């Protein structure tokens, strides 16, 4: 039986336009700008200075806190500058700018295609290696992987769940790597199972990726304890809490962490990065990124170095596909971020560069709420978005918002997607959730 989560969900159009396009290496660019804030938590501290020579895979940023991570150079060349630059939302973030000269890799990296199956090391050694490789959750949340693989002492992991659901429309990066590198992903999963000391791993893939399911099933066949699950197609299947619910029927209690259900969820791309880091000594400095859109003819699945300017990628697929106003999105159409600044560069979490035309994306005028309840029906967290919207618009009703569990919102966008009156539910809920979280944290701090 195909599994899925129990509450809510929507069915946006699939639009996996680039699923049959093989991964292609993105050609080198003359200059990369590597952000120091590619992970959740504190931005890394740059440890190179203007004029320094760097090689591919060299550490250029060190973690600046517990929840932080290493950043490596994705190219070889000379550091042109270390300065704050605008990220894709226009906010200033420290970047290391490197002028590319040749392609000289750190000699420790195993660049052969040979698949290394045997691995050794204690969980601590493995986690240290993963941390040193700067691996973060590559589904988009960019939570440092080594933190997730080392749960607090009082909590015991029981299952590892590899998230290959890829429930966002358009994005095909995970689909492609599952088809092209299934064995490596499974080895990555084995390594994480060892790091967590768990016996069971589920690989969850939505039913709309039959080729990936076949490839992963074949690759997982030779290992005990790894099971590939075919999931029903429903958004947001790839949400951490939804995926745990779908597979184990355990619901992460409100306010708790996924580890409280004994589950650790990792993206398949993260598993691949773990394989490369542990078996090939290759830190995370490149990733697969889908470049797609209904309006785009030349769709791609690029393996792209971190720090590549988005406008270079845009130019490589032929520039702006249509005249007029466009929306470029980093990530999928449901949870991705709109790009304000095309000079911004790719990051560890950039799974997709999506192009939408005005007709596809412009919001229609908001009309009155007709109390149809479709938002509440669609909400995978069992909230009532219409009520939260109403309370929020009254203003200063944070107590009521908290009582109506606004803090549970995962910002998946189902409510706004479904609303027949085009009410910007999530826009309003998101900022008010932030306020409520602030109030909750202030109270806990007391």
């Amino acid at each position, binding site marked *: 039986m195909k599994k899925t989560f129990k*509450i809510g969900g929507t069915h946006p159009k699939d639009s996996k336009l680039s699923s049959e396009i093989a991964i292609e290496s993105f050609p080198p660019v003359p200059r990369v700008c590597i952000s120091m804030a590619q992970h959740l938590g504190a931005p890394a501290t740059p440890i190179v200075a203007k004029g320094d020579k760097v090689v591919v895979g060299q550490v250029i940023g060190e973690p600046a806190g517990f929840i932080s991570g290493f950043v490596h150079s994705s190219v070889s060349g000379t550091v042109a500058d270390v300065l704050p630059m605008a990220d894709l939302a226009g906010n200033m973030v420290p970047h290391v700018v490197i002028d590319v000269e040749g392609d000289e890799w750190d000699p420790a990296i195993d660049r052969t295609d040979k698949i290394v199956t045997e691995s050794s090391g204690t969980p601590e050694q493995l986690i240290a290696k993963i941390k040193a490789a700067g691996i973060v959750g590559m589904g988009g949340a960019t939570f440092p992987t080594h933190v997730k693989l080392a749960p607090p002492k009082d909590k015991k992991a029981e299952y590892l769940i590899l998230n290959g659901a890829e429930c966002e429309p358009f994005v095909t990066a995970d689909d492609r790597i599952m088809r092209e590198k299934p064995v490596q992903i499974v080895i990555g999963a084995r390594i994480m199972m060892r790091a967590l000391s768990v016996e069971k791993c589920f690989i969850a893939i939505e039913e709309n990726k039959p080729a990936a399911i076949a490839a992963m099933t074949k690759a997982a066949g030779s290992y005990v304890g790894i099971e590939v699950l075919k999931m029903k197609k429903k958004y947001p299947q790839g949400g951490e809490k939804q995926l745990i619910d779908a597979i184990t029927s355990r619901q992460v209690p409100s306010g708790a962490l996924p580890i409280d259900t004994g589950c650790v969820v990792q993206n398949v791309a993260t598993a691949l990065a773990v394989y490369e880091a542990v078996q090939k000594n290759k830190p995370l400095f490149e990733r697969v990124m889908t470049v797609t859109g209904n309006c785009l003819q030349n769709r791609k699945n690029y393996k792209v170095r971190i720090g590549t300017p988005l406008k270079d990628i845009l130019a490589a697929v032929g520039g702006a596909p249509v005249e007029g106003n466009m929306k470029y999105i980093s990530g999928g159409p449901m949870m991705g*971020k709109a790009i304000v600044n095309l000079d911004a560069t790719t990051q560890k979490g950039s799974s997709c560069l999506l192009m939408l035309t005005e007709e596809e*994306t412009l919001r229609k005028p908001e009309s*009155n709420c007709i109390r*149809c309840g479709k938002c509440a029906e669609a909400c*995978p967290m069992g909230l009532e978005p219409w009520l939260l919207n109403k309370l929020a618009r009254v203003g200063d009703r944070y107590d009521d918002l908290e009582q109506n569990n606004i803090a549970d919102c995962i910002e998946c966008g189902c409510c706004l997607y479904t609303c027949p009156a*085009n009410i910007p539910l999530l*826009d309003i809920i998101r900022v008010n959730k932030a306020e409520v979280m602030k109030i909750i944290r202030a109270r806990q701090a007391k």
Partner: protein
Amino acid sequence: MSQLIVSPSPHLHGPESTSRIMTDVLIALAPACLASIYFYGLPVLLLLAVSVLGCVLFEFLILKYLMKSKAVFCGSSAAVTGVLLALNLPPAAPWWIAVIGAFVAIAIAKMSFGGLGQNIFNPALVGRVFLLVSFPVIMTTWTAPAGLFHNVDAFSGATPLSIINEGVKAGFPANEIIAAHDFTPAQMLFARTGGSIGEVSAIALLIGFIYLLVRKVIRPHITLSIWVTVAVMTGIFCLINPAQYSGPAFNLLTGGMLLGSIFMATDYVTSPMTVKGQIIFGFGIGVIAILIRYFGSYPEGVSFAILIMNCVTPLLNKLKPVGFGRK
């Protein structure tokens, strides 16, 4: 110069829109309208047209000129009210009744509460009940369904419910009246049930119900909850005393029960949003409707039942859905 468009996520919107939903409801009402035109003839078409035009026009004028609102005008929503109002009128009603009904429905029941989505009571039902208490003779003068090209004959009809109501009051057993008038389920299901325009063909209403379900416009909870409540309640009463109380099939298929439970009780604005609330809502309607039918002086109680339960909707909306991880 072309610019980048920026907005918070999500960047796509689903196909649903208010006007699409209302258009779907209109399509679902089409079989009932066609059936009533077929059975009652062209005067019904006039009533439908007047009522729809009246509702749309009143809503537009009030929204733009009285409220001076910049809100989006949703004509299809007003049209739904218009059709429902017309379907609730007796076939021989004069056209101006529809105008008054439309005015009360839109101006008083809908726009005075703030317009689309703000009203407490179902506008079409308010219009109907207003007409019923203001023009009791016109609103209870029934005609037998004659056919498309026959003149409406204003002397021959009575609704099955009123026949039972009168008959039981006069001392005849209900089951015998039903048998004498040949009110078999098959007969009532397929056609020619006397009463309001929309009640003429149960099958046409059921087709509309299935359409609404298939298009996912409504969820079945309210309607089914009403049906189950009515069936169980009338079943019990009928078992106790078949001479006094009519049975489940009769009660489900006659009067405004189908029209009300499928199209009026499920109105988004005036019904609860959560499944729990919807089931309680339907239960309440069923109980009140049957109580009025059995013990009230009116032969029909669905309109009143829905209006009464409309008052409870805000309370029922306090029932929360079960949150994720909050068992």
